[in-house]
């Protein structure tokens, strides 16, 4: 086990288990290795702490918790960076921003694609996607919630 400093104190981590960004994150191109930190409370949020820079930690979430139809597929060169074989799975994650008023937004324009098999990740930019880099969490009306529920079960069946 290794120990690093962070804004939140000392963190002990397994160097074999770090999440590796071969190209860094946008704006943090030099930071390649991150420790995945579980949230102490239940819920869809978790965070990653840079091994190389104590000041850099980002909150991430799976956007399909909130936007069920959100889908990003890695392109061929991104698959290569992720070290993915044809059948390997991936997950899209997004960066969560909490502003000084505790407002929460998701950056749906620049998702992080994560390949569990290689433990690698890459942040990509979706040009002309129509998404916002500061997408507020959806306000769910009862009717909308029902529709979304139906969509999700269809999706589950389709992925079967």
């Amino acid at each position, binding site marked *: 086990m290794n120990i690093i400093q962070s804004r939140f104190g000392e963190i002990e981590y397994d160097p074999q288990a770090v999440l590796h960004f071969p190209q860094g994150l946008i704006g943090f191109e030099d930071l390649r290795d991150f420790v995945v930190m579980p949230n102490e409370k239940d819920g869809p949020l978790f965070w990653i702490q840079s091994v190389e820079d104590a000041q850099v930690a980002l909150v991430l979430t799976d956007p399909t918790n909130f936007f069920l139809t959100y889908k990003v597929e890695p392109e061929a060169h991104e698959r290569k960076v992720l070290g993915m074989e044809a059948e390997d799975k991936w997950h899209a994650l997004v960066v969560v921003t909490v502003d000084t008023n505790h407002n929460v937004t998701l950056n749906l324009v620049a998702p992080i694609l994560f390949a569990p098999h290689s433990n690698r990740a890459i942040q990509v930019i979706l040009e002309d996607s129509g998404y916002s*880099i500061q997408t507020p969490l959806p306000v769910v009306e009862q009717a909308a919630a029902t529709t979304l529920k139906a969509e999700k079960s269809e999706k589950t069946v389709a992925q079967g």
Partner: protein
Amino acid sequence: MLVLTRKVGEGIIIGDDVKLTVVEIKGGTVRIGIDAPRDKKIYRQELYAQIMAQNRSSTGWSLEDLSLLSGTISRKAEENK
């Protein structure tokens, strides 16, 4: 900075594998066509800068934020299911 003058339909070659073509000039807007390998990252500069700024401003959260938000966010995620 190298500055070149081009007319519509003319192009610029960069290295072995990037070719820029001026497609259209209209008012103050220039449309540029880019031929490059898929693995070359090509973004509009302001979009890249916005994402860089957004990533940077996403590092300012506190553990208290995370703890407070987890409750409300879990409820939202549940509602979505």
